[in-house]
């Protein structure tokens, strides 16, 4: 059994191998993750919109042992990651971290929320520090304005 605790280190190796085949192969995998995650996150969004996102990611915050601050308003859902357990494990790893490890997160979140009419602005902040910021808006212009101010904006499919 690959322990739940260690999936991200296998994921990290998967990213390296796919990037060796070509960036398009890595992007194709991210899209398959998005399709899988649509079945997990989707019902929360369908049920409660932005509040549903809060509920989904609050469970993630607990189960994945994240140090994070979550906020929901009438306009957006915000996720401020203060210490990401996923990048932390990819880095605390005898095989070493994939340099673009962080990009996978926006790569699956953006397609899923867009399917439900929402838009994600994503600031990776740093690929070597386990912090990031993200807001999901109903209003596309506001999401784009949020991302325009990002220190390291996520563009996983560019």
């Amino acid at each position: 059994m690959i322990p739940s605790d260690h999936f991200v280190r296998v994921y990290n190796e998967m990213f390296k191998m796919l990037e060796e085949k070509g960036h398009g192969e890595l992007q194709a995998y991210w899209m398959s993750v998005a399709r899988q995650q649509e079945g997990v996150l989707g019902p929360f969004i369908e049920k409660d919109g932005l509040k549903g996102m809060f509920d989904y990611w609050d469970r993630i915050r607990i189960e994945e042992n994240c140090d994070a601050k979550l906020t929901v308003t009438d306009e957006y859902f915000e996720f401020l990651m203060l210490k990401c357990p996923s990048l932390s494990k990819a880095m605390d790893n005898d095989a070493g971290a994939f340099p673009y490890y962080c990009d996978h997160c926006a790569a699956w979140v953006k397609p899923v929320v867009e399917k439900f009419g929402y838009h994600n602005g994503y600031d990776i902040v740093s690929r070597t520090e386990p912090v990031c910021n993200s807001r999901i808006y109903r209003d596309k212009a506001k999401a784009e304005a949020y991302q325009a101010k990002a220190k390291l904006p996520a563009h996983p499919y560019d």
Partner: protein
Amino acid sequence: MRYRETGEVHRDFHLSTNNMIHFTLERYGKDFLRELMRRTAQDVYKDIYMHLKAGDWSELLEHWKYFHEREGGKACYTYTETADALVFHVLDCPAARHLENKGVAVTDEFRLPDILMNEAWSEGTPFQITTEVLGPAEYRQTVTRRKAT
């Protein structure tokens, strides 16, 4: 043990593992998954592999015990250890059980990472590690010393 996580467990990562298996097999075939599991067994779990190369299975046994117990409790496995063999019998795999609880079929391919990782852990070590799949959530891993030729 090199990695010893504590705290909560996000079991939905087993769904992600299942997706990864099917994506790789459908798009690239078994050799790609074999190489992924080789890198995992020998590079990510370098500490376990180096102990095996040195003729010591104790790190592997501790890893198996710790993470099966963490996700499925002590009752999910048994093991026997002699001078020549270690048999680790998973009676109720927590990963397979989670898939079933989520309504996801446990296919034959779901056990393939274990088979391939055990093959990779055997490479260049004094041990042969075999995996017997006994049911959707039951399997037995046996570590034996290779006979000197």
